[in-house]
Each structure stands twice: as C-alpha cells, then as structure tokens.
C-alpha cells in the first residue's frame, strides 16, 4: 500500500506496442513523487485545509518575533485589558500580552507534537512490525508488553508519572507522552504487518535469500507508509491534547510559555468567571485548531493512500424530456 496515489487502472498500463515497448510518461522520473504528492494534496480538500493550518502554525513557531512584537513573558503591561490595537488579544491578569503568549507558545506545542509523533511512531513501528514478522516467542513477548501498556488507563498513568517528575519541562513531557502513547499505534501496525506477511513479494524476498531483518526494514515497512504516516499524525494529535492537558492541571512547567500553561494560569486566576474570556478561549481554540489540522491530515492521507475511502464521484446523466 504505497502512500502515493496509483497513476491509473491497475490492470491496464498505458497502451503501447508491442508487449514490451511502452511510452515513457511525460513527467520526469525523479520529481515525479513530489509532484504527485503536491497534486494529491491540492485535489483533496481535507489535505489542503490541514496542510494550510499546519504551515501557518509552523511559521508562527519559526518566526514568532516577526508576528508578535511584545515579549511573551514580560509582565509589564496593564492587566486584564480587552483587545486593542496595542494588544491584539488583550492582556492577562498578570500583565502579559495574550497574543504574544499565544504566538510564542506555538513553539513548545509543536516541539511536543512532532517529538512525540516521531518517537512514538518509531517505537511503534519497530515493535509492531518486528512482532508481526518475527512471530513465535518474540511476538508473544512484545505483544504482552504492548497490551499491558494499552490496558493501563492512560490519563491516570500520565498524572502519576508527571507528578513524580514534577515541573515537567518539554523534554520530560515528550518522554512521558512517548512511553505511554506508542502502544496504541503499535497494535495497528502489527495488525497490518501480519496481514502483509503472507504476501508473495515477501516470500519472494525470502526465497531470494534475504535476511529477516532486511525484509522487515526494506520490504515491509515501505509498503506500510500510509499507516505509518497516519500513526505519526495520530500520535502528534494525542501529544497536543494530552500534553496541554497535563500542563493545564499544573504538571508541566508553569513558567514555560505554552498554550497549556496559559490555560493553567487562566484557570488559576478564574479567567472565565471574571470576564477575561480571551485568556481562556484563545489557547483552547488554538489547541483545537492544531488538533484539527492533524486530524484532517490523517483523514486526507487515508484517502490518498486508499482510493476506496475517497468520496465517490457521480456521473451526471443528461436525461431529455
């Protein structure tokens, strides 16, 4: 199951004569994968929206100073102001500029999201696919570990770990979230790898004399790119939501700049009850938006990788009379 869309009906290649000589497709062969991906993103609405959102957030994280001119941590501004030209989203009860906080906060959230996404997925792929392909005792042991982690209730576990660590900075959050998050996608990857195990091209590789690890890494994993990308997006989404939740209940580092910590301070100062709506709503909305971006991309890649899931086109039939 390649991630990239198939170029045409699988049984009829471009016509050519005779059986052997087929015309070379117009697009250059190297750039073909990227241009295909670009086209796929453009044609799928979910992908376009999700990508656009993600790009905006990435830009915010990379160049925060360009967009927000105030410092996010300075508490020098007048407190609890509403939105104005000087402070686009107002200020907090502690005298900070909300807009600046929101923009600078993007950095930490994205680091957590991508960090957890990458590491979780990495571990999930290794364990899930190895379990499926190696089988036997290996499968049993790895499965046991995966299942135990799956069964333990997630949020209480996170709380226990985070409380133990206290004032969890970004790195600690990433580690904690990775350790608790990999098991879910490992299960899915194992299931898919199991279904691929009997495929002829894997038997062909075995008969050719390839070693088992080679087959797992080179032959199996690339055919699972769809699911691996989906796992990454799932894990990133999970990280955004649960990471912010941990910070919200005070287990993160309250002095760091992040949407979750904004929510923490807003809650502590009873922002909603005292009419400082923006302080609470802004970080919440941003979390939701980033989460939506990952979710949309997840659906989009599902559709791109598996044409059966795409919205079905209908032919318009002209009927006279």
């Amino acid at each position, binding site marked *: 199951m390649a991630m990239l869309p198939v170029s045409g009906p699988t049984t009829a290649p471009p016509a050519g004569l005779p059986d052997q000589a087929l015309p070379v497709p117009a697009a250059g062969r190297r750039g073909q994968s990227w241009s295909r991906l670009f086209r796929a993103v453009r044609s799928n609405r979910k992908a376009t929206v999700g990508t656009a959102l993600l790009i905006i957030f990435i830009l915010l994280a990379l160049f925060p100073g360009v967009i927000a001119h105030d410092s996010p941590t300075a508490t020098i501004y007048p407190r609890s102001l509403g939105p104005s030209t000087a402070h686009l989203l107002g200020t907090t009860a502690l005298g900070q500029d909300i807009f600046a906080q929101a923009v600078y906060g993007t950095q930490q959230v994205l680091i957590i999201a991508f960090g957890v996404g990458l590491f979780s997925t990495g571990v999930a792929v290794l364990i899930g696919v190895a379990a499926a392909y190696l089988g036997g005792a290996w499968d049993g042991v790895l499965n046991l570990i995966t299942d135990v982690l799956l069964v333990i209730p997630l949020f209480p576990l996170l709380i226990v770990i985070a409380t133990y660590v206290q004032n969890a900075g970004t790195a600690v959050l990433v580690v904690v979230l990775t350790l608790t998050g990999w098991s879910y996608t490992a299960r899915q990857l194992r299931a898919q790898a199991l279904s691929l195990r009997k495929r002829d091209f894997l038997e062909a590789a075995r*008969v050719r004399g390839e070693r088992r690890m080679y087959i797992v890494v080179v032959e199996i994993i690339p055919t699972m790119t769809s699911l691996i990308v989906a796992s990454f997006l799932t894990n990133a989404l999970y990280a955004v939501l649960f990471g912010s939740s941990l910070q919200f209940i005070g287990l993160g580092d309250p002095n760091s700049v992040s949407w979750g910590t904004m929510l923490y301070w807003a809650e502590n100062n009873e922002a909603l009850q005292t009419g400082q709506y923006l302080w609470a709503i802004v970080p919440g909305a941003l979390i939701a938006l980033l989460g939506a971006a990952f979710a949309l991309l997840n659906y989009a890649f599902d559709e791109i990788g598996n044409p059966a899931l795409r919205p079905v086109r209908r032919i318009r039939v002209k009927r006279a009379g």
Partner: protein
Amino acid sequence: MTSTSEPSANGTALLRTDKLTRHFRIGNALSQQTLHAVDEVSLTIGEREIVALAGESGSGKSTIARLLAKIYKPTSGETYFQGKPLSGFKSRKDRLRYSGLAPMVFQDPFASINPVFRVSHGVLRGLKLHRPELSRDERYAEAQRVFEVVGLTPADEVLQRFPHELSGGQRQRVGFAQALAMRPKLILADEPVSMLDVSIRVGLLNMMAELRDSQGVSILYITHDLASARYVADRLIVMYAGRVAESGPAEEVLANPRHPYTQLLLSAAPDPRAPLGVGAETDRGEPPKVINPTPGCRFRWRCPLAIDKCHQVTPELSQMTPGHQAACHVAEEGAEVKAFG
C-alpha cells in the same frame, strides 16, 4: 516445442526426490488431525527439460514447489539436488547458494513484486546477494541482459518503471528475469500463467521454452491446465490428493493416459475445436482433502474401475511403457483400460 530429453538416470538427475512427504497438523487442542498434503512423492527433473506438475486443488503441487524451494521442511523423505541432499544445506552460505540455483516464480503478478520499488529492485538485490563478485555497473548490465532475455525491451527503460505501470504479463516476465539473474539450474514456476489473460499466456509459455533452449535452464511448471502442460512441457507428472498418479513424456501420457484420473482430467478439459456431447459422462466428485487417510487408492471413490484391492492397498508407481509410470492397480494388470472419455 519439446526437446528430446529423457528422464535421466538417478545419478545424473538435476533434482530427485525420494518419497517426499509433508503433513500439516490442523485442528485445535481438542481434536488434532493430520492433513496429508504430499505423500511419498518421488520424481526427477533432468537438465534442460521442462517438467509439468499438474493437478487440481488439494493435489499437493504447490506444496511440492515450496518443499523444493525450502520454504517448508519435509515431514519425511529427501530431495537431492545435483546429487546432494537438501537437508544438508544448513549454513547460510549453502542455503543462499541453493536459493540461487533453484529460485521460485510466483503465481500472482500483482502480489509478487513489491509495489513500492521500481522493478529493478528485485533483480539488483538478487544479483547483489548471489553474485557478489560483480561491481555495481556489472550488476546493472546483467539486469539489463536478463530483462532482454525475457523480452522486456527496451530493458533500460522498463527497469525504471514501477510495477503498477506494467501489465500482468510483463510482471510475470519480471519474475522470471529475477530468477534468471541468479543463473539458476532449475526454475520452480508455481502456476505462472494462471492469472494472466489467455492471449498473454502463450507469449510466456513460448518464453519458458526459449529459456530452456537458450539458457539451458530446467523448469518445474506447476499448473492445473493440461493443455498448457502439453504445449510447453517435455514430461508430465499428474498428481492427485497428494500422491503421483501418473508420469511420463507429456505427449505420451496425454495420448495414452493409463490412470483413470488422468483420463478424467482429459475428458473434462474443454477444446473448442472438438465437438462435445453435452450428455458426456460427468463426474460430480471433487478432489478430497486428505485427512488421516486409510490405506488404499485415494481416487477409489470416484473411479468406475475400482476393485477390492484398490480399497486395501495404496498403489505404487509402476512402469507401463518405458518412461511412463502410473499408480493404479487396474492399469497394472497390463490391459489398457478406459474409465472416462
């Protein structure tokens, strides 16, 4: 279409199996049963010959291919390749060498090539593993050469394609090219044309005969289609329910089938050029799954000629005419018998 080779004497056969057997355990903890997929199959394949292994589902032909490719280990019996027993190939080096000498080509053109890589991937990997003495450029040149031999031209251009850009027939040719790159003595072809359109099959069958003639490769051609076996094979082995029913030169077996099952297969094979009486005798049975069998011929339930002995003693292969053997008590008696058709 055939070459004039005869089954080789034991000492010089390229591949020889001796009572090769493979059982599978099926069922759960409460009721263990044994599925006899292959029982005591002794066959030979000589140099430069195409041997067709024909049978219906459950005959064991695919299991034999996998036993010969060392995907399965035999329950009992032995296979000798160039005189040496396969069970002796224990080290990685030995197994690698054998997989290069006896590679396998698979049935499904859509599943047997990794869709993510260009079609050059499999060939180049095979070359890297089996012919490490070649440099990178030499490997590529060799890949081009084998692609040309199987008729995929211009080789340079086809090598760069992805599998979904090739038709089913072309993909099967890629499978053969991958096998050829390892300079094999014997190609194990598991129903290589069954999933292709009819008009494409002939092209591949012709290619297989060409490989035998120009590359000196033997081919074990596994099929359920007797007509294609007749077209391309020098010798024919008919299997039923895990045992060999009949074997001999392809033309001879099909012209004078001695085993009632072979006669049944022949009568059921459609031939548009011959008129067919619709009322012709039809057998409703299907090949059995052989689970915990009792002694006796496995075809006895469907055989109109079955005698008492058939229910008690499992028939062994015996000579009918030189080179032509059949495992049938009734045929043994000497008289030519007609059960079907």
